[in-house]
């Protein structure tokens, strides 16, 4: 960052307040174009002054990055992460509330519902940092569920649920997958039965992120026999006929669970949009979910590379730091090439999603393919280059390997996204 861009830079005001100041400045002629653009829809195509193409971040976004990193360094170093993941919920409520206060959770939610109305590109900055520090929190789950409500929900539904999500008092998640582990519409078979003026849902949702701690579930269910006849409903935790719990799973920093429904009652005002028309939105949510987890993967992979690089500089064998040997330094260079490359693909995908570009879906799939294949390789390589200590519970590199393994299937593995690319891109 070159010049001071606003007066309160060194104050202790939380980012959210600063962002608000910036958002309010949206109409001014200061050169905060990208932030302003995402902050204020009405200015999106307006006569704003732009400097030039910028495949990077605004000064405010870089400032936000620095603040997020500082917060995480101070409050959630890996030692602390290790402590947090052993607690029953797997994340720290206090840190979660503070993160929400800082605006991370409501960043992309509408202003009229307590959010900040900023674009996904700004959220990307936060996610790279939460990924880098393996910060355990239901941030992605909550943002994704909120996007479902924002996209399909009525004004009343948004007003009912979003403020609680934006301020962090409620946690939400998207319950999509089932036994079939199939992201296509036919993978959704959760049965719905009409009973008077309510719908009864029965069946199981699996691999539900943060199921154990979610207060709200956006649940995909089958509402008719047509192939794409699926709907979304919002279920509240503890409603009769619902049971949610987390699985024991490989990556302790990410919880995955199940939601069991036995005639769970859904009132009509808890169904998002017209029944049977949710598939295009679900499709979009899968893309968004894939983008969000890939953004975290970019930061996490950089964390893994940094850790391994530092180890290679310190560890001495044959009277030399092992990082001097080409057998060590070249694989690290390749890791860097791959990370920078799926970073570029991911950045573009976020921009394309924000702008609703026609190639957004394709862009997400390219990024997810590359990350799903490369990040696990980087994790494995990181462990290998550490030698025997890499295999211990005590060393941190294994935490990154587990995150990479978690990433691989999330919102579509490489195989799924290769097929998407062929279908969308016409191979």
């Amino acid at each position, binding site marked *: 960052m070159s010049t001071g861009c606003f007066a309160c830079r060194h104050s202790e005001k939380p980012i959210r307040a600063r962002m608000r100041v910036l958002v309010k400045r949206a109409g001014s002629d200061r050169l905060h174009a990208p932030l302003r653009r995402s902050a204020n829809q009405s200015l999106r195509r307006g006569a704003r002054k732009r400097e030039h*193409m910028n*495949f*990077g971040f605004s000064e405010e976004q870089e400032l936000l990055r620095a603040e997020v990193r500082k917060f995480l360094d101070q409050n959630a170093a890996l030692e602390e992460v290790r402590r947090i993941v052993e607690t029953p919920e797997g994340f720290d409520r206090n840190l979660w509330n503070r993160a929400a206060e800082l605006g991370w959770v409501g960043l992309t939610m509408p202003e009229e519902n307590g959010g900040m109305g900023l674009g996904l590109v700004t959220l990307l900055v936060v996610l790279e940092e939460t990924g880098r520090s393996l910060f355990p929190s239901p941030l992605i789950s909550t943002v994704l569920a909120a996007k479902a409500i924002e996209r399909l929900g009525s004004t009343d539904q948004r007003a009912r649920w979003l403020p609680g999500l934006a301020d962090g008092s409620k946690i939400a998640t998207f319950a999509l997958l089932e036994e079939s582990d199939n992201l296509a519409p036919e993978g959704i078979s959760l049965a719905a039965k009409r009973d008077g003026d309510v719908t009864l849902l029965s069946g199981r949702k699996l691999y539900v992120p943060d199921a154990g701690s979610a207060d709200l579930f956006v649940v995909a269910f089958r509402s008719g026999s047509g192939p794409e006849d699926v709907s979304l409903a919002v279920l509240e935790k503890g409603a009769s006929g619902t049971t949610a719990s987390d699985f024991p799973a490989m990556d302790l920093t990410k919880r995955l669970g199940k939601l069991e429904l036995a005639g769970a009652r859904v009132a009509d005002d808890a169904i998002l949009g017209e029944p049977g028309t949710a598939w295009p939105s679900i499709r979009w949510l899968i893309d968004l979910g894939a983008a969000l987890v890939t953004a975290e993967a970019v930061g996490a992979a950089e964390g893994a590379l940094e850790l391994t690089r530092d180890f290679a*500089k310190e560890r001495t064998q044959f009277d030399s730091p092992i990082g*001097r040997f080409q057998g060590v330094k*070249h694989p690290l260079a390749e890791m860097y*090439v791959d990370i920078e490359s799926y970073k*570029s693909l991911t950045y573009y995908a976020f921009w394309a999603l924000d702008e609703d570009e026609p190639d957004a879906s394709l862009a997400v799939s390219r990024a997810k393919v590359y990350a799903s294949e490369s990040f696990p390789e980087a994790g494995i390589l990181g462990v290998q280059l550490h030698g025997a200590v890499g295999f211990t519970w005590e060393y941190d590199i294994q935490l990154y390997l587990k995150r990479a393994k978690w990433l691989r299937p999330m919102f579509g593995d490489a195989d799924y996204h290769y097929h998407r690319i062929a279908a969308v891109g016409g191979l």
Partner: protein
Amino acid sequence: MDFQLTPEEEAFRDDVRAFLDENLPAEEDREPLFMLEWTRKVREQRWVGFSWPREVGGGGGSIMQQVILKEEMAKRNAPQLGSCFMGLAWVGPSIIQYGSEEQKKKYIPEILDGAYQWCTGYSEPDSGSDLASLKCKCVREGDEYVINGQKTWTSIAMWSKMIILLVRTETEVEHKHDGITCLLVAMDDPGVEVRPIRNMAGGAIFAEVFFTDVRVPLENRLGEEGQGWQVTLSALANERSSISEVYGLRSKMEELKELARRTVRAGCPAIENPSIRRRIQRADIRVEAMRLNGLRFITKQLKGQPLGSETSINKLHRASLEIEIGELAMEIAGSASTLTRGADEAPDGGSWAQVALSWPDVVIGGGTPNIQRNIIAERILGLPKD
């Protein structure tokens, strides 16, 4: 993040498109005489040397204008701008930066006009990746330099009129990067001998160049004596965003897909073979990653920061892609893929066999992949030097 062009940039793009609409026929309609016309017109437009300052005859194009021009040209498979490849790529920029007024006046217009070719005398038999260890001897005698030594892997030496040459003017130096001087030498000077080297594809593009008592006037020195390494580095640092390379790879990938669509293997078009499809997709994704990496590099340049070692990222991608495309073509075309020009059965007239053997031009020239990995590991990751 913002990918939209400013109104001024849009206006420039529209101008470029209008010019191309008017002056660039579809590929199949480009008559033999077309190139003459094209060369004259793009020169008049100042698109040759478009990034160079206007006062030396360049176009004074901004970074974004250069990107726009390259993209629009590549989209229509337009011919190269100018014909003096190395002159435009690094000899010219070095002369603009380090040359005397006389040198600028003498050489720059000829480079822009494509009057003749330049070649590059950097590598020696014992100085390849370790270029700074070069030994080609150069002694000052009165108002002349006398050169004795050998260069090798000198591309197009046999068709060049001039060579930009690195020589050692001082041997007793503490650091091997010192004592190197850059000279501009005429290839028809007495004592210069060129021996073409036949490559594994059967052709000869590069050559050995021998210097025996070659006498060069002092005013042919580029930069100060002993400053040659710096001159070279700044020339090589004249790196761009690799936009042209990306479009080159894209069109090769399209040709490859076309080959896979029309090649029937075991009763099925090769493009339907899942493993071929996967490899094509992987390559496509890497080409797109290169494009976006390039846009990030441009963003950095637009912010006024010079590009550094990160350009090695796309060089590594390009190296693997050039090799993979050749391999993939052979996997697609099967037995016929090994046939060369002259065989009726060779797909696309044997050009894929040529592709499969020509990758070293790109992969080795300008720094081998292992050198690129060293650059990243040492300069970006901060690992100790070997």
